[in-house]
């Protein structure tokens, strides 16, 4: 092998390593959730089996957003356990009346009009189809924020190449378009960007 080939290959290897390993680490920063919320614990101990029990729809079909602290206060009005998380939730947020500033993995720009009701009730999509099966998770997922765009990593998906993504990994507009194309449902620009 010639010297030139070796040097070229070395440069190629460095760039590939930097692009596939170092770049994603540099691009995303990790932020902790304000409270360590465990979906699995709540499902097992509180008997919550339906996502809509906390993530409800309003009468007009719009998604009501994250549950407010009033919902949490139904059980956590006072300390249930002795963990630091419990103390933070009860003392810092519920008793002080301050809403928990959750970091939302799936937050989209405000100019996107997405009707959960149509997708869940009419199209029969499961929550996990888009959000992944986090209802069974026994640990808090790390919230990773893109340093450039400011959006969560969940929007691009965890695979940098976007080629080997699991179902529900990625929430870009192209993902919406792909799903609609597969199902043969046409929606114009104004369907989502009203």
């Amino acid at each position, binding site marked *: 092998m010639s010297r*030139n080939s070796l040097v*070229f290959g070395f440069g190629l*290897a460095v*760039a590939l390593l930097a*692009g*596939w390993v170092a770049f994603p680490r540099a691009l995303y920063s990790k932020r902790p959730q304000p409270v360590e919320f465990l979906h699995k614990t709540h499902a097992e101990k509180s008997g919550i089996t339906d996502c809509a029990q906390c993530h409800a729809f309003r009468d007009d079909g719009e998604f009501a957003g994250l549950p407010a602290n009033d919902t949490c206060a139904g059980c956590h009005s006072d300390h249930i356990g002795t963990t630091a998380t419990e103390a933070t939730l009860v003392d810092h947020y519920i008793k002080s009346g301050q809403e928990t500033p959750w970091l939302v993995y799936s937050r989209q720009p405000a100019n996107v*009009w997405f009707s959960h009701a149509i997708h869940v009730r009419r199209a029969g999509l499961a929550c996990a189809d888009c959000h992944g099966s986090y209802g069974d998770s026994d640990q808090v997922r790390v919230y990773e924020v893109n340093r*450039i*765009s400011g959006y969560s990593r969940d929007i691009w998906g965890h695979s940098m190449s976007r080629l080997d993504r699991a179902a529900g990994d990625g929430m870009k507009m192209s993902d919406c378009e792909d799903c609609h194309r597969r199902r043969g449902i046409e929606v114009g620009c104004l369907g989502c*960007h009203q």
Partner: protein
Amino acid sequence: MKVTRRDLFVWGAGAAAGMVFSPVPWKLLDDVSIWTQNWPWIPQPPHGPIEVKQSFCTLCPQGCAMKVKMAGGCPVGVAGVSGNPVTRGALCPLAFGVHQLNWHPQRLRAVRHKRVSSSWSEARAAFAKACGEGPIVIVDGRPGSAASSVLASFAEEQKGSYRVALSLETRALLPYEAMVSPVIPASALGYDLERAQTIVSFGAPLLDGWGIPGRFTRLWSERAAGMSEPQLRLIQIEDSLSRTATRAWRWVAIRPGSKNALAAGLARVLVEEHLVSARGPLSALTVSDAALQTNLSESAIRDLARTMVAKPPVLAIAGDERPEIAALNFILGSVGSPGGIVRRSKPTEKYELANAAIPNARAVLIDASVPWDYAPPTDAEIFRFAAWDGGSNRADWLLPAPGFLEEFTDVNSAPTSAVETYGVAPQLTKPMFEIHSAAQFLSAIDSSFTNPETIIHQRCADLFRERAGTVYGQEIMPVAELDSAQKFEAELSKAALWVADAPKSASLLCELKEWPSTSPAESPRNWSAAWAAAVLPPLATKLYRESSLREAPDRRTA
């Protein structure tokens, strides 16, 4: 081993090749494009609770009901209200992007005098000085609203003139004013499209933005679209194959400028062949004259007249102010009858029109509701209220007015509506800088005038006192079933719509003394009084320019 300059280049080439096969360029391209949408100076709606409120679009006189999606108290999207009996869930393409307009780069943010930054106090002082020096003229684009009362009262107090810039649809109704007795102003008349079975449109773009966007298109889709023998026949008389003409039941292509001749010819056939009970008066034009002018054959005109009356009620609609079409409606018996021209509301005052000559005025104040391209025919000092600066304009003073949802205001019946309606558009968002409506500006100069909010409260109380009509809000409630005026006003304040009961009798006493003399063809340079936006939201710009849904204002010729 010595590293040479060649090694560096080769290494760089390898790294560049490797970079192409890494996610770096593609991911950076995506992220940077998103980053450019989120620069610090680009307004971002605050994060906060998502709520949907109801209001009315106040951009044009149609006042369509809309649902407004608010994020953290900021409008981020609009949609139609399907339960609204007038708009029936439809909005025009412009309204879909109206929430973007408050942040438009051409939003007027400060007072400008001769294009140079000035202040409200200087503007008030200048207008007060002008009021003391000579007669003033106030031009309003939406007569009948609470703010209009203030404008009219101020003009009267100053012994000035109050004028209105009527929409093109209302101007098409002006010829009926002289026909009905007692005189009913055009702003109190409407088209009973719902009960008409044959509509003959003389160039009116019925399926392309005429009147309330959803009203006729919904009727057409329910009673005509795709039917070989439609319940509602639309005959489009036009010199070009417009959008409406392509979808109409029949398109009658005539020579440009010959609509009046065709109306005269049709009236003559209707009377001569006893197809209608009326006996005239008729134009001196014979059917063969009309055939010559329109480029239709005489038999085609006779066939058209017979087709028109084959499925009554028949309603002829003009695209602009044409006394000949009004006379044709008189011959057809369509004035004051179901499915024709009907009286919508109680007679109101007759307005002086904005495009009449303005002699000897010291100043002209133009309300923000007047289309941007209106230029008063005068050399007087012009005080122009506008939320957006639409470019070249003769105004001496440009005064920033409330934008979308920034003002508590009322919405009267749409110009073509057959029923009287009343709604209140609540203020849903706080203005970002100091803005005043023309009514607030005048109230600040002379505090003795009642402010528009008080007038709206008074109107709600008056409507409730009549105990008539129905309120279309979250529920449909007859006013008679509401407990109190406060509850009625509370419903309206949430952008419910009050709709009057249908009048028991549509009949109007009307008379046509003589066939109107042929009106001169309108020059493209004449201000058409059609509503035009000063600026377009980015979304509508794309729709306007790329799909030619509508002609953009700067391409409109007449």
